[in-house]
């Protein structure tokens, strides 16, 4: 986006580009990256004496502690498998609905959309408490299905809203043109609508994967101690292990997220995510 010289001038007059903005920038860097760096260094630290700004020595010992620990290894497997399964199930359930919200007018449409939003308004912990009492009655506590349900619930809003906005943004004239050229409905959907809506779906998949990978409270309440994922292991880890082990585990836990960030970065910053929550 370009901006006029005048707006630039007015911004400059307010020190928007001056030392004040540098200070703001620096504070934001420390605020956002500081905690991550401070924790990250610990993964390679021998020990640490206050108030030194660096560790007393460097070591890779903590990595072997984590990588050789079987329960932690299983947690890594559980997390990855659960997240993949969650995205798959959620996509099957929500993507057709997203298409319907974008392309059809039907009875109860608005109520449905607000209902989806209401899911977001109920406090997560309270929701899990209520779900847990239901799961007791249905024998779903400590089962994979129970945990999967909780994870899928956490992704419904992303998987419906963001792709719905993406489907709605596909120009209908393109679809009609393809129909006029003799393409079947399925062909139009597969060759025109789907490719154009793909960035939105990709963002939804990434967000859902992360939501599942990140989910800790519900998994802990429903799944522990039988089904432990990486985030729920963190709860016990920080209490029972030295700080450095938690740091190693944190880095491992952040790897998939950062990989996905790099993959979908363009679309998320480009406004696809914001689009999903917005009325235009």
């Amino acid at each position: 986006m370009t901006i006029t010289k005048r707006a630039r001038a007015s911004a400059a007059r307010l020190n928007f580009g001056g030392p004040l903005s540098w200070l703001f920038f620096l504070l934001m860097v420390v605020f956002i990256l500081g905690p991550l760096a401070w924790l990250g260094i610990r993964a390679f630290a021998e020990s640490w004496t206050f108030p030194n700004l660096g560790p007393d020595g460097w070591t890779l010992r903590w990595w072997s502690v984590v990588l050789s620990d079987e329960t932690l290894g299983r947690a890594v497997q559980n997390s990855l498998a659960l997240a993949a399964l969650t995205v798959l199930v959620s996509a099957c359930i929500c993507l057709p609905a997203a298409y319907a919200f974008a392309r059809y007018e039907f009875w109860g449409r608005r109520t449905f959309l607000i209902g989806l939003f209401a899911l977001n308004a109920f406090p997560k912990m309270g929701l899990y408490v209520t779900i847990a009492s239901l799961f007791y009655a249905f024998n779903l506590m400590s089962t994979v299905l129970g945990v999967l349900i909780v994870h899928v619930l956490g992704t419904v809003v992303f998987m419906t809203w963001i792709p719905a906005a993406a489907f709605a943004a596909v120009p209908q004239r393109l679809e009609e043109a393809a129909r006029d050229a003799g393409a079947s409905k399925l062909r139009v959907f597969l060759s025109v609508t789907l490719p154009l809506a793909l960035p939105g779906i990709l963002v939804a998949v990434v967000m859902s994967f992360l939501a599942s990978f990140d989910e800790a409270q519900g998994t802990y309440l429903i799944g522990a101690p039988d089904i432990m994922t990486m985030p729920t292991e963190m709860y016990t880890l920080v209490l029972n292990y030295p700080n450095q082990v938690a740091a190693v585990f944190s880095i491992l836990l952040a790897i998939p997220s950062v990989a996905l960030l790099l993959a979908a970065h363009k679309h998320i910053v480009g406004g696809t995510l914001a689009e999903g929550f917005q009325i235009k």
Partner: protein
Amino acid sequence: MTLAPARGAKRRATATAAVARRPLGFFLALPPIVLILLFVGFPIVLAFAFSIGLTGGLNHVIASIGLNVHEAENWWGTPAAYLEVLSSPRILRDLVTTVVVTALSTTVVIFLALGIGLFLKLRDGRMARLLSGLAIIPLFIPVVIASWAIVTFYSGDGFLRSIFAQFGVEAPVWAFTLVAVVIGSVWTSLPFAVLMITSGLQAIPNAMIEAARDAGAGFMRIVVSILVPMAFVPILIAITFTAIGVVGSFTVPYFTGPNAPNMLGVSMSNYFSAFNQPQQAVVMAFIVFLIASGIAATYVWANFRSAKDQGKI
């Protein structure tokens, strides 16, 4: 997003009448709705019955496990559990804490996001783009890690104290205080607000800003009279989602906050697991839900208002 497709669909309905009002859309949209009714709506109704002392049926198991359960002797329930929770000074303090932390965190988040958004809109450059990229990073860090990193950063032997100690200054310990809860909430909520507000501000045509400048408007005037009102809906969405996220949060206050008073999300979990008083936990959930729905109502209202505005044009 809610209403744009609806308007499109309606226009189509009158124009071509081909796709509109076929039951197919309804059935396609059904699966997530059924899922939510089954695993959110139904448990909430059940939990509400439990909170007013109706302990029969599916609530029987939880009522027999839990301690200190108020049972109703009639079919319409009893407010006893609500009265107990609302007269407990400990829980009331948690309630006040929850409201204050939510208000404070939301305010800080919105101001930071507005600052970054305006920076990007009015002074596009490498630093502005770096800044907005930086603000997105927390989106990709699991909240558990973020909370733990923040505790370590602001702890007794953390970065803040270490830096100040280099100059012989004793900095405060923020870990396990409400300050850390606010910091953590701001840290984790920032990306969504920045994405929302930035995209809202970017959608405003630059020509409008130029026109206002030609008419002699100053920087503040442009921000207050043009940019903020034009991006009002995205800003409101950012506010509601931030506030709802913070008000019901658990992980951040659990890791970074003090034992007491803390936010209701933590006491809810304590009452449910540690104290084994599920009814009181459920009552707290409904109190938080009430606050959250108040916030959510403004979002729905904004959606309708915006749709109405667009419909008139």
